[in-house]
């Protein structure tokens, strides 16, 4: 399938009083049309910053240090604010924000906020046409059209999340970034939202970048999985492989740390220590200080992304022998 988005060696840093925070530190991936990429990582792993970078929306004092983001052959990192606004944001890439509760402006009705999107990006559309489309959108995410005339605070969490998804689909973008789309929702609602995303993805052939800390949610949707740790991607590959036969000790540990609903109740393992301070990252592998399998080398030299036989990428020295080549 056609390649939609290519990210090359993206580095997004924040200048803070304490030093430079390397929130995203050399991430590369491609996204094909209709592909769902799940990006998993714990708090502070840089996954949200990565999402903001894709829209050119890194909040100050953050900035894209280097790297390229190619969308349809255009490099987003080189675009002016006006170009981003007119060509990329929402037309090509839309986003479902973390905590949908706060992603809607509280003083406008839901419909008005969707209407505004059309006003800006499709000024030729008539008012009637726009509103028909709004109702259609709301109904497509399983909401009644009367929701359009309500204010965000009058809606439940699940309804707001649906509204935000409807809004993301308004201009039929190629890519939807979903940043923790179900966090803070109850499990039942979460399941409904995941179903909705699944359905929409299939119907419209959407490409989705799903960002979450919850591997369970990733498994529901993602075809390809990227595991991030301390601003680096540590493992990248098809979900089937990553979940069943992880090739990075971090991925493996994460999977073993999650209690399961079915099967035998194994003793959970945990990862000792805590993620590194991104202003003063350790030399070598960022995960080495917490890694049960760390070797001397791991503390000294940063592992490259090894490309494995099964097509996966993994940044761990243990994979050296299995690797086809050191990519990255």
């Amino acid at each position, binding site marked *: 399938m056609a390649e939609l988005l290519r990210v090359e060696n993206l580095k997004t840093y924040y200048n803070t009083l304490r030093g430079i925070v390397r929130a995203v530190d050399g991430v590369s991936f491609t996204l094909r049309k209709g592909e769902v990429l799940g990006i998993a990582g714990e708090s502070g792993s840089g996954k949200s910053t990565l999402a903001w970078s894709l829209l050119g929306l890194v909040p100050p004092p953050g900035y894209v240090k280097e790297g390229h983001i190619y969308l349809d052959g255009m490099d987003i990192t080189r675009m002016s604010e006006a170009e981003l606004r007119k060509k990329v944001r929402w037309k090509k890439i839309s986003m479902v924000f973390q905590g949908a509760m706060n992603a809607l402006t509280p003083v406008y009705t839901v419909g008005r906020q969707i209407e505004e999107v059309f006003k800006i990006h499709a000024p030729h559309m008539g008012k009637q046409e726009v509103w028909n489309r709004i109702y259609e959108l709301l109904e497509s995410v399983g909401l009644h059209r009367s929701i359009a005339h309500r204010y965000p605070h009058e809606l439940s969490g699940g309804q707001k999340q649906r509204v935000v998804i409807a809004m993301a689909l308004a201009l039929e973008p190629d890519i939807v970034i979903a940043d923790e789309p179900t966090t803070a929702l109850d499990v*039942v609602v979460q399941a409904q939202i995941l179903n909705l995303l699944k359905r929409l993805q299939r119907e419209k052939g959407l490409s989705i970048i799903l960002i979450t800390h919850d591997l369970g949610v990733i498994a529901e*949707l993602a075809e390809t999985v990227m595991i991030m740790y301390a601003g680096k991607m540590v493992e990248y590959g098809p979900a089937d492989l990553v979940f069943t036969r992880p090739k990075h000790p971090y991925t493996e540990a994460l999977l073993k740390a999650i209690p*399961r609903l079915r099967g035998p109740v194994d003793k959970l393992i945990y990862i000792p220590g805590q993620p590194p301070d991104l202003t003063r990252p350790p030399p070598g592998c960022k995960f080495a200080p917490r890694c049960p399998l760390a070797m001397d080398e791991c503390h000294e030299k940063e592992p490259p992304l090894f490309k494995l036989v099964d097509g996966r990428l993994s940044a761990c020295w243990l994979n050296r022998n299995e690797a086809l080549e050191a990519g990255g």
Partner: protein
Amino acid sequence: MAQANGDIVLDVRDLKVWFPLRRSISEIVTMKPRRYVKAVDGVTFKVAKGEVFCLVGESGCGKTTTGKAILRLVDPTGGQVLFKPKPEILKELERRGIKPVDGGYVDLVRVPKGKFKPLRRELQIVYQDPYGSLNPRFTIKRILEDPLIIHGIGSPKEREEMIARILEAVKLTPASDFMTRYPHQLSGGQRQRVAIARAFILNPSLVVADEPVSMLDVSIRAEILELLLDFRKKYGTSLIFITHDLAVARYICDRIAVMYLGKIVEIGDARRVIEEPVHPYTKALVAAIPEPDPDNRLRIREVPIKGEVPNAASIPPGCRFHPRCVEYEQDKERLDALCPVKEPPLDRPINAAPGDERLVACWRYIEK
């Protein structure tokens, strides 16, 4: 660890916590009765010594309020909370003029606020939010010392030793290093360990753990759970573990109670309830949980439930779950006289396997 051994520490009977709603002007004018948010609406369960008892349910189901009502951090509207304190605490209470109910139990609901203090040594809580549960202006030492000072335990030197010991027990070593730190200098996981240390430093008989891991990163959750189980084993403390995560519940709990809108709908052995749920709501909950299994991607997850949770201020009549219940819908003709009319009691399901101690509040499964 089932309750069969009869060593019941806590016996909650028909506990109710109702919060009065402010009446609108038209309601005052028309003299309508005051309405209540029935956060907890008749909850009954027992917790054995050394047991981990789980309360699960979605947000707003009353699980946290139940936990806090047991600790009298929220005042119950009705019901009984019979608690069996350690003998020395019981003696202290008797000295203060509180007569125990038979068998060395005290009804926590009826203990006057002014005489509750000795019981605080016995009942502790661990909160969800590791950032808000530690006083930002106290050092770790001061945080852990405060309960000891309040109860007049030990000399300063002894207290310091106790603090060092408990810090080591929660693996914050070297203890002396952590004592002088402030909460903001610790990571989330470390803070939660301090919170656990604070809960256990008084050696309580019962600890309520209110979603202690849900705000922590996945990689460190297991460690916190481990710690709680450790303490349980070491001191025989009973745990009421409140969570929305059935998978965590399955991992840590001996018994489990599933709550919906202020009531327990299903209660029983944790594994059994989760692996073979009976109540339609439990079934929906179990079905809704995503697991890191890549096969899930290929199917639309069927969650057998309709609509959204109603407002706790307007609880549906009869079985409070029936408007969302798929099974009621399927078997409407038979159940129409029951579900929308009469509240189902917690009872043994008709087809319960032998040895299954579970109770269910659903007409479909208890009606003979």
